[in-house]
């Protein structure tokens, strides 16, 4: 099986004197479903950031989708990012764009045709139960609704890898279930590799998954 992510001795930090992730070694197979857990402040978001090149490696080698991130050109990084769908912990929706346009963004960046774009957005809006909100702006939605928009955006361009940072953090049980079903669907039907940071691993999930736990800067696989 292909490996989407291979990390060797990866250390991550924001400042010179503190290390958030210390010499981590792990790999993720293509098409697998991965959960990352850990206490608040343990470095889960930081680890995700490293996977799409938003934080420089302090040390080590990190290959994502065949791209070596320790020495990557801007255009290569853009290329990689166009094939990743990210759900940010703080959503990062474009405030001056409608919900519809926000979900459309990755499709536009990937140069999809207008007809494909509109169909895809419509179907996603239906899936996250936001069809009636399509013309609204992010700040006119509740936190949970914004989170569902972020989820829809991450799925829109059928990425090879989905990175979701607490995608159900603000949602009630019903909406959470909705999100898990979407991620499960992408994983089983489209063979998308899914990596999710969460505090609660859902029990209803119908997939085999890997579980990484971060503690004191090290990443441990839990079986």
């Amino acid at each position, binding site marked *: 099986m292909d490996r989407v992510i291979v990390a060797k001795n990866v250390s991550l930090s924001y400042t010179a004197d503190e290390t958030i992730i210390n010499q981590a070694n792990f790999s993720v197979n293509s098409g697998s479903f991965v959960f990352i857990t850990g206490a608040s402040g343990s470095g889960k978001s930081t680890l995700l950031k490293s996977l799409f090149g938003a934080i420089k490696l302090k040390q080590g080698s990190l290959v994502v989708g065949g791209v070596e991130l320790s020495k990557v050109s801007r255009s290569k990084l853009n290329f990689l990012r166009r094939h990743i769908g990210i759900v940010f912990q703080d959503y990062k929706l474009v405030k001056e764009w409608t919900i519809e346009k926000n979900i459309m963004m990755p499709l536009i*960046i990937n140069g999809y045709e207008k007809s494909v774009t509109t169909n895809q957005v419509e179907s996603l809006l239906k899936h996250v139960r936001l069809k009636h909100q399509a013309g609204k702006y992010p700040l006119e939605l509740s936190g949970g609704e914004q989170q569902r928009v972020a989820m829809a955006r991450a799925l829109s361009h059928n990425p090879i890898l989905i990175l979701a940072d607490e995608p159900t953090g603000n949602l009630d049980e019903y909406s959470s279930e909705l999100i898990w079903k979407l991620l499960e669907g992408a994983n089983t039907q489209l063979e998308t590799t899914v990596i999710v940071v969460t505090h609660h691993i859902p029990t209803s999930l119908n997939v085999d998954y890997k579980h990484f736990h971060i503690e004191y800067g090290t990443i441990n696989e839990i079986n």
Partner: protein
Amino acid sequence: MKSIKNHLSLIVALVSILFSIQIFVIVERSIDAYKQNLANNYSVVVVSQKAITQKEFFKINKLISKVKVLSPDNVIKRLNSDIDKSNMEFLKLTLPKFYKLHLKSYPSPREIKRLRKNLLNNRFITKVEDFSNTHDTIYKLLVLFKNVVLVFAAVVSIVTMLLILKELRIWQFKHNERMSIMGLFGAPTWLRSAVLFRLSIVDAIISSMIVFAIFTVLSSSNWILNQFKNIDISVVIFDNVGDFFILFGISIVLSIILASMIVLGHKEEV
């Protein structure tokens, strides 16, 4: 509603810049028209011992546009009584020639001085009356007026520029966020800034339309037309084609410069 608000700040700034530019152009045109008026009424009188042809006058100084011979008949008529006909002809020949010179444009005091020097360099010309005292006062008044308008326009432009620079920081902040998010999804720089350039070009088009509308209304206003009639000049207040394209060009260039400043000021968040 939201999208209108996004556009408004740049549009207001562009409109005020275009408006003051056009006002300055109109003032310039009025002063030029008024100067032409003055030039038509202004003349220099020259006394010469010998006849000088129009061609020779043109060679003396380029400003000269028309030469009129002042007939000596009136002078002679007064002496007329006891001079016989043949003497009279002789007198006419020996009497100096008087010329009235009209100029192409209203001269500056320096141009008058040079004209006077050029004329007196001719060995037949004995006297030049340039009415420089009256001329100088009017000229200085015009220069004063033009300077006042220039200072006024400069102040308006500087204040608008300061406002724009202040706004620029807000725009920068707003667009930075969007450009960063697009970057996180792999948008290349040109695509990230395309939105901004499209927005500013649309704003430039809208603001030139607004200015077009304002000046079309102004140039058909009777009150304004009467102001110009009162000082006996006719001025093109707004040329629908020429002026419009100049203003349109200025606003496009300005907004593209602003957009470029925002793009260049964008900090890459890796």
